[in-house]
């Protein structure tokens, strides 16, 4: 599929087959193409070229109204003049469902989303979390074949986000629908599990089981999309059996199942594999000048400079290093990922 708008590429030639069960997560930064891809799937937009298939049928030209799709957005969208009950019931009213059935289905979904005590209120009388629960309930009540959730947790307070994220998988667990959720937060993708499509500049750089593409990203772009804080990336040379990062930082190139042949590579090292404390063998020392330390109580994120490059270390506990201080860090070399000149994982 390709989507161009006034000559600008929004979705670059992309093919994905989404999973029928569990979440399908679209992971990428703003403007990576997540929303466009969802609009194409929903039928709100038409692809410039390519096709959308659903359940073995080509639905490319099928109007939105003729598809059984539900969508939830980042903004809490509800009918302000309707009660929570009527908000949830609205798709059933459109489908002219019998009153008794409407009542039963709305109550069932409300119970699931813990909205029962709020059914008579207006959306404006609800907290942000409850407003988004109402929007989710409306998506669930109509038994859609395809549910599209466009960053549904992004506008929620930290704790509400955590709570709803925890509940989401169970809400969809026993439903016969395909679920696609967009997010820009790698941790959110991991915790929701399922499958993930990493997106970068309108292109799916990898699709697969979420934990797998996090642990073995096929390419550097996916590794970058799937790391927060940003993954450390540096050019290295393999020579005389060593991986050489700089004059002072090198480590043995063996110790992998398949040894790295000599040559130039890009190494990718996740921030939590760069530690301010030496933890046993298998670590390469790297010295750097501390730029900034962020301590969040349970962990420390230290930004430091080594040569021309900025590095990030993320570790448990409190390591209060001062700005400008020279400090030693330890790279867990067994966890390093190597990419070739095209950015493909070796």
């Amino acid at each position, binding site marked *: 599929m390709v989507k161009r708008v006034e000559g600008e590429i929004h979705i670059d030639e992309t093919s994905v087959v989404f999973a029928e069960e569990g979440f399908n997560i679209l992971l990428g*930064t703003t403007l990576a193409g997540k929303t466009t891809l969802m609009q194409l799937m929903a039928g709100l937009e038409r692809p410039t070229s390519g096709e959308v298939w659903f359940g073995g049928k080509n639905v490319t030209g099928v109007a939105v109204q003729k598809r059984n799709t539900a969508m939830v957005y980042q903004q809490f969208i509800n009918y302000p003049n309707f009660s929570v009950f009527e908000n949830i019931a609205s798709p059933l009213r459109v489908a002219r469902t019998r009153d008794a059935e409407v009542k039963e289905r709305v109550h069932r979904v409300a119970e699931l989303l813990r909205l029962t005590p709020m059914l008579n209120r207006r959306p404006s009388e609800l907290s942000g979390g409850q407003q988004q629960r109402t929007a989710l309930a409306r998506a669930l009540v109509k038994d859609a074949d395809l549910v599209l959730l466009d960053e549904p947790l992004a506008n929620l*307070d*930290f704790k509400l986000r955590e709570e709803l994220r925890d509940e989401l998988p169970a809400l969809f667990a026993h439903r016969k629908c395909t679920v696609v959720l967009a997010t*820009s937060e790698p*941790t959110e993708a991991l*915790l929701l599990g399922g499958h993930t499509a990493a997106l970068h500049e309108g292109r799916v750089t990898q699709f697969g089981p979420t934990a797998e593409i996090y642990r073995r990203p096929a390419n550097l772009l996916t590794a970058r999309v799937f790391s927060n804080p940003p993954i450390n990336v540096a050019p290295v040379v393999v020579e005389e059996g060593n991986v050489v990062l700089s004059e002072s930082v090198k480590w043995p190139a063996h110790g992998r199942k398949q040894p790295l042949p000599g040559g130039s590579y890009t190494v990718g090292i996740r921030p939590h594999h760069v530690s301010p404390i030496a933890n046993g063998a298998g670590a390469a020392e790297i010295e750097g000048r501390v730029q900034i330390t*962020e301590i*969040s109580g349970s962990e420390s994120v230290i930004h430091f400079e080594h040569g021309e490059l900025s590095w990030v270390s993320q570790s448990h506990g409190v390591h209060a290093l001062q700005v400008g201080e020279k400090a030693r860090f330890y790279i867990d070399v067994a966890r390093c990922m190597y990419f070739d000149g095209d950015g493909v994982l070796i």
Partner: protein
Amino acid sequence: MARITLEKLRHSYHPRPAQPADWALKQLDLEWSDGGAYALLGPSGCGKTTLLNIISGLVRPTEGRVLFDGVDLTETPTDRRHIAQVFQFPVVYDTMTVHDNLAFPLRNRGLPEADIEARVREIARMLDLEPMLGKRAAGLTADGKQKISLGRGLVRSDVNVIMLDEPLTVIDPHLKSQLRSKLRELHQRTTRTMIFVTHDQIEALTFADKVVVMQEGTVVQIGSPVELFERPNHTFVGHFIGSPGMNVLPCEPSGDAALLAGHRVRVDNPPSGPLDGKRVELGVRPEFVHFGGEGVPVDIVKVSDAGRHRIVDARHGELRIKLLVDDGSPIPSEAARVTFDPAHTRLYADGWLVE
């Protein structure tokens, strides 16, 4: 810059407040030293914005005083308090260049052009805005505009305090962490007093030296990020800070230990007196719960992979216990038992830490 003192402050939006719920801000005494980095943290409606508005002078408190360096400013209007504010949505002069935006407060004060030039350059360098000085502010991204808002506060030498009200709300998620680091760095370089208001624990903890945690108009704890994490004063702080938050488990006190569903659990703060009639709970963070050969038997309900570690949901009867297990460490498949690190396991009575 200034030391800020809040003295016996109370505020109600009701004309005649009668019951506790009428007070948006319950009694509050607070002192912020000159040059500190502070955060006001709490959920929506906790009173943090009311407090901010009282400090800036937009709201006159029902009771109490606001002092800057010991001088009572409670009745002083906002424009004479010398405060710089950065709001959720960037406020810039769209038609002006970045340079003129930064120079604006100084020109207003009639400074000599040469001084303005030097000051604007210095601040632009700190904010990484130097290459954009000649550009129109309208063309900048949200994070660039937010830097200008902040820069207009930083160029002035007469500012008592810089107040940031949820300044990262409209910033792209992947730029948030960069701007967060930048704010922290700027504070360390300029040592201006800064107050950062947010509902986001990560923003508060990474920015501030001291965090004021608020709930329902009350300050529940003031502490460094480490204190809030390691020794929450209240179960609300334990829950609100940390992800996932602290386990709060109903229990019974028993000498120097607690009885958790009949199992003895050692605690760091055995009560010195009786806790009769109070709701007694055990607080322990998921980081300090471990699988072991002894302890409380549990069923494992769910394991979520967070990459660096896994979040395990375990259950013993009605009790739900969360654990964090490092990536690579084993999770027992059957007959699981959990133990609690006694140095990080504490008793709470009616929500408050037992002293």
